[in-house]
């Protein structure tokens, strides 16, 4: 057991080494870079499985397995900062998920990126991305988590902007970086505040950590502005970071734009590494979020906010997804929506509920994204679903895998993992004591999810193929869509197996996942199934209704050409334009925040250019004038005087040298005159 915890750090370091080595490789060593990255992930997966196996035994009944390894990182004065890593079911589960999904995505990238000239760089970034996420997962210190968190942000920036020669990709990368940075500010503030209050950023440290009883009981009783408990206030600040990373409502705008990156990157961001980080953070600091004073039974303010934001995000993004036409953008909004579910699950049901959805979602969303990548690859980089259609016959493997993913996301009952995890969330929301609002919003979101996924399936895989119209209209020569190579379809099939099978780990009858996270042993109890039966029936009904509506609108009379108006557009043109415009959030931000920023920039520019710059220029001008005066004085006074003196001297010299003419009689006459003068002076001057 001890050796396991000593080895956990190797898991994130392996891909980091792979990234480092492939960064130094010449560009032609494509196979080496890919082999390094995939090998590191595979080795990491094996190690994670060992760690995972270790966590299966709870430390004591009711207490989950937990081992930590802390070390001092920085000492200043009497204070010190410690870093460390932790192995508990939460981190072990994430480790296995990230390494497995990551490895599959890496393998898939072999096929997807085969023709890219920067293949080596791509795998370097991928490995770096995975490494940062793995570090984040095992961190036992909020500081280490924050460091890895920012590395994840950097890696996502690099990967979203991988095709940086496309202006839209560069802009999307910048947007992702800046928007998540807004949330990170909250995270940083929360972290600083937490350190001030508890003196430690370690999560678990033999009773001294900031998530343990001693610190929490102190945080809970002190209140801050408006009677908010300190724990909730800090929790909310930390949630800001989570909202930024996980694309929650006010900060969701970057996530759909992140589709500009290569599709494996989208899959990685949306499934395994980036957006899961926010949900994971909330799950990690869950003791802090849920803390309420002892004896009080109410739900903490932080969790209420998390729940409501999650529920609103779930329905909001699902609505937008209904009217999008880019295959990846639909999936992006569905991710935002599902992240909302996860947050809501964390808020209403606890870590197990939220994390269970995170796990199942990671697999089926990776599956969907890789499937979408396969579709895009097969359709020659065409991403608009209006130009697809009929791919069911042309790409049978992709179709099968995609259908599994779609049904898991929509929550088709019993067989698919998404059903169980989403149902757990809805069930918990139903039991939430404060309000039925999140439940209603979640149920409506589920309906919409089923609807838009059916719409996407119908447009992409059913009906006639409309690519010919595009080629006729656009004049492109486009070959028939084709199935992708095995290196891309095999990961799809593996993911599909997980997308189906994972659900049974958390069904109400056998809640193994929950028991594992909480450290209790789980027994099969069919009775619990009947308890949850009403919600299950309801959600099955909702899913059926959503899929039926989708089929009725889009499958019954398939769209014949790309130019045709959308079925929903014909029914509700006003609503459709709002949804297609994504509620104009981007436009709203552009009109407010961005414009404000631009105004401030303009003002700064004006101040710099005219006020401060003017002062500088005035000083420069004055100095110039002074030196001009000095120059004049030098030139005309000093030089002039000197020149004058010299001229006189020269003329004097010339005069005297003129006297010296060599004529003896001239000299003599001067002597004679002098003599005469002397005589006159002696005679009449009175000297005699």
């Amino acid at each position: 057991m001890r050796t396991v915890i000593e080895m956990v750090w190797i898991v994130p370091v392996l891909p980091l080494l792979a990234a480092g080595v492939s960064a130094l490789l010449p560009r032609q060593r494509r196979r080496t870079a890919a082999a390094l990255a995939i090998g590191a992930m595979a080795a990491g997966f094996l190690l994670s499985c060992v760690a995972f196996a270790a966590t299966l035994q709870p430390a004591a009944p009711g207490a989950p397995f937990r081992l930590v390894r802390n070390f001092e990182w920085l000492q200043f004065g009497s204070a010190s900062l410690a870093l460390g890593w932790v192995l508990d079911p939460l981190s072990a589960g994430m480790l296995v998920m990230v390494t497995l999904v990551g490895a599959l995505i890496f393998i898939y990238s072999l096929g997807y990126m085969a023709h890219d000239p920067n293949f080596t760089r791509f795998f370097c970034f991928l490995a770096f991305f995975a490494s940062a996420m793995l570090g984040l997962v095992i961190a036992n210190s909020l500081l280490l988590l924050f460091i890895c968190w920012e590395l994840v942000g950097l890696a996502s920036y690099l990967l979203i902007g991988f095709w940086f020669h496309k202006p839209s990709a560069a802009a999307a990368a910048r947007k992702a970086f800046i928007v998540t940075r807004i949330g990170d500010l909250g995270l940083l503030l929360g972290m600083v505040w937490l350190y001030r209050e508890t003196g430690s950023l370690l999560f678990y440290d033999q009773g001294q950590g900031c998530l343990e009883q001693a610190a929490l009981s102190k945080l809970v009783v002190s209140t801050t502005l408006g009677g908010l408990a300190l724990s909730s206030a800090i929790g909310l600040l930390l949630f800001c970071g989570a909202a930024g990373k996980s694309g929650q409502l006010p900060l969701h705008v970057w996530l759909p734009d992140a589709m500009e990156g290569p599709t494996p990157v989208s899959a990685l961001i949306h499934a395994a590494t980036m957006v899961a980080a926010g949900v994971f953070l909330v799950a990690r600091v869950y003791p802090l979020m849920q803390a309420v004073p002892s004896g009080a039974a109410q739900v903490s303010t932080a969790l209420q906010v998390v729940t409501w934001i999650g529920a609103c995000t779930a329905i909001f993004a699902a609505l937008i997804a209904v009217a999008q036409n880019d295959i990846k953008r639909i999936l992006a909004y569905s991710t935002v929506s599902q992240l909302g579910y996860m947050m809501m699950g964390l808020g209403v049901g606890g870590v197990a509920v939220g994390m269970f959805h995170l796990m199942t979602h990671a697999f089926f969303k990776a599956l969907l994204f890789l499937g979408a990548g396969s579709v895009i690859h097969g359709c020659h980089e065409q991403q608009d679903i209006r130009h697809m259609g009929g791919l069911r016959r042309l790409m049978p493997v992709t179709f099968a895998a995609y259908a599994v993913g779609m049904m898991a996301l929509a929550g088709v009952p019993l067989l698919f993992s998404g059903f169980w995890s989403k149902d757990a969330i809805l069930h918990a929301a139903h039991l939430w004591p404060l309000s039925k609002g999140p439940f209603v919003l979640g149920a409506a979101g589920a309906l919409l999810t089923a609807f838009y996924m059916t719409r996407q399936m119908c447009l992409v895989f059913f009906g006639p193929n409309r690519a010919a119209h595009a080629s006729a209209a656009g004049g492109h020569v486009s070959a028939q869509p084709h199935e992708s190579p095995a290196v891309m379809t095999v990961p799809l099939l593996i993911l599909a197996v997980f997308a189906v099978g994972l659900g049974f780990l958390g069904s109400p009858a056998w809640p193994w996942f929950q028991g594992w996270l909480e450290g209790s042993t789980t027994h099969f109890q069919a009775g619990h199934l009947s308890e949850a039966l009403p919600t299950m029936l309801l959600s099955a009904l909702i899913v059926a209704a959503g899929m039926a509506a989708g089929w009725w609108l889009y499958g019954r009379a398939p769209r014949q050409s790309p130019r045709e108006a959308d079925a929903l557009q014909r029914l509700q043109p006003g609503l459709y334009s709002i949804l297609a415009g994504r509620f104009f959030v981007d436009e709203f931000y552009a009109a407010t925040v961005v414009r404000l920023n631009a105004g401030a920039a303009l003002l700064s520019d004006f101040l710099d250019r005219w006020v401060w710059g003017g002062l500088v220029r005035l000083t420069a001008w004055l100095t110039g004038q002074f030196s001009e005066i000095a120059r004049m004085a030098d030139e005309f006074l000093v030089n002039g005087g000197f020149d004058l003196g010299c001229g006189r001297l020269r003329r004097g010299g010339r005069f005297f040298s003129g006297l010296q003419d060599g004529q003896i009689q001239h000299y003599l006459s001067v002597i004679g005159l002098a003599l005469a003068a002397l005589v006159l002076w002696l005679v009449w001057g009175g000297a005699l």
Partner: protein
Amino acid sequence: MTPLPYWLILSSILFAIGLAGCLVRRNAIMVLIGIELMLNAANLNFIAFWRYGSGAEAAHGIMFVLFAIAIAAAETAVGLALVIALYRLRRTVQVDEADALKADDKPR
């Protein structure tokens, strides 16, 4: 006996004639003659002051004048030699033409 001022006036006139000859004549011989005249005017002064002075019994004035005459003769000999040398060199005895120290100033 003729009073002293007459002799002094005569001497002055002699000196003035000598000086004028020195200054205005361009011939080197005439300049030398002017110089002789001025020397002799000075000699005349010596004799006159001796004769009319207090120590007339001592032959101081005569001694001065005899020495001056001897020196003047030597000086005239040197002067004439210079004039001849000048003539040989420059083919002229005009003093205003001998205004440079270097012989080959004006090639002949």
